[in-house]
């Protein structure tokens, strides 16, 4: 471990626990996220990383534990307080989640129109600036249905940063994109973080982009943090779970069979005498 310079903590997760029915999705997770860093949360499907992200944006309340953001515990914030906190972060959804009854420009301008009392001309200029930032100049009047998957994500990103947020959350930003578009989105993520000093929290399992964008990596497995570290530390990890995940081996401690012990019983369970 290198001695970390003292950094400002923007999100602090303490002992987060969440159950869905009898299944424990998140098991006592504690984590600090620093100002200006790109933190990648990775892990296999069903490891709880999406649930973790939904806790950070306040879409799900934890069963126990705290999520501190901007000096407030959002697990206990009221609806009004949550609305104020939400104005300070943006979120890029997996499919873009653009409002398909609105044009690209209206999508991006929506939160400005609703929350900031700005002149319509200024709103138009801001929208054009954000579109320029994601490389989509001149796409203002298209409908989301006319865009490709990569364009939708870029519009989603423009919408996420339109209020100049301090934190941007990305939910699998490169899933389902071709390698070039993946590179484009990764570069945008890096640019935003470096140029605008935005804190980025990225949930992904695309190993190429993980090592391209991450300052720090958190590996989740079955609701637990397996390892936290810099990309170098993760690459050289001795942890067999982490090794298997970054090399993509089928055999290893991460088994695709969920419960292996009662297979015979499971097979014959519905046979009636």
């Amino acid at each position, binding site marked *: 471990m290198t001695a970390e310079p003292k950094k400002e903590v923007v999100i602090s997760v303490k002992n987060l626990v969440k159950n869905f029915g009898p299944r424990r999705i998140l098991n006592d997770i504690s984590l600090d996220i620093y100002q200006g860093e790109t933190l990648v949360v990775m892990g296999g499907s069903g490891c709880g990383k999406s649930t973790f992200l939904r806790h950070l*944006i306040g*879409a799900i309340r934890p069963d126990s534990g705290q999520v501190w953001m901007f000096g407030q515990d959002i697990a206990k914030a009221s*609806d009004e307080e949550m*609305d*104020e906190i*939400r*104005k300070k*972060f*943006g*979120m890029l*959804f*997996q*499919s873009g*989640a*653009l*409002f*398909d*009854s609105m044009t690209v420009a209206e999508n991006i301008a*929506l*939160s400005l129109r*609703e*929350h900031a009392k700005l002149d319509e001309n200024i709103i138009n200029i801001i929208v054009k600036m954000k579109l320029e930032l994601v490389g989509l100049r001149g796409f203002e009047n298209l409908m989301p249905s006319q865009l490709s998957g990569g364009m939708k994500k870029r519009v989603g990103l423009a*919408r996420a940063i339109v*209020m100049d947020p301090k934190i941007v959350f990305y939910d699998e930003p490169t899933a389902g994109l071709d390698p070039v578009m993946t590179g484009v989105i990764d570069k945008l993520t890096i640019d935003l973080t470096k140029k605008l000093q935005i804190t980025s929290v990225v949930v992904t399992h695309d190993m190429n982009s993980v090592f391209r964008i991450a300052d720090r990596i958190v590996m989740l497995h079955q609701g637990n943090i397996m390892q936290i570290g810099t990309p170098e530390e993760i690459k050289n990890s001795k942890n067999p779970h982490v090794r298997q995940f970054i090399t993509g081996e089928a055999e290893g401690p991460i088994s695709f069979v969920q419960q292996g012990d009662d297979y015979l019983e499971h097979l014959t369970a519905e046979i009636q005498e």
Partner: protein
Amino acid sequence: MFIESIGRTTNSFVKQFKDIFVLLSQTVYWCVVGPFRKKPVSRKNLFAQTVFSGLDSLIIVFFVNFFIGIVLAMQSAYQLEQMGASIYVAALVGVSITREIGPVLTSLVIAGRVGAAITAELSTMKVTEQIEALETISLNPVRYLVVPRFLALLMMLPCLVILGDIIGIFGGYIIGIYNLGLSSGLYIDTTIQFLTVKDINTGLLKSAVFSVIISMIACYQGLSTEGGAEGVGRSTTKSVVSSFILIIIADALLTAVFYFAKT
């Protein structure tokens, strides 16, 4: 097993009723309190919904009510002619359309047209994360999506019912004049003579209640959708079917209250 399934169904019914009631109270809250907290209903949305649920429904409402008026006149004429009382066709058509058939039929048509569209739209938004996206930019889905639809339908359905009533009576009038050989003045006079203000008022009140049923069920089903394209289909079906049933039940209750209870 059987009893258990009855229990489970009842439970989920009670839960749904509760949830719809919660949604209704939130909607009313945003309608009444919203403007005072500088969070009024989006005018643009309200206008778009008003046009969609009102203006665009005119043709289908006209057609249905016009032909129902004609059918009603023909059926009643067949009976009344035998007693030589053809003129009462005017009274029968006028009263039954304004009291009962106009409001109920128009509401059913609107539940099929507007209610289904609302559920399909909101449920698609739900399964493609658009509802969650609205929340993350601090827009309350009830205020932004439900309230405009609720208000638009509450304003437009009574208007459609009034227009439907007039067209339905006109359908009866056509049969009365051209088929039964009644004089135009006599037909109109008889219609007015038998219609009371109460008939029109109860018809309007009913349609207001029906509009709340349609918009609340449609929005609730839309916002509670889960499970992709299949879920969208399931919610839309549920929305239309349960609106139909509840409209008929509410109609029976309201008719009992207005015309039957004070014996």
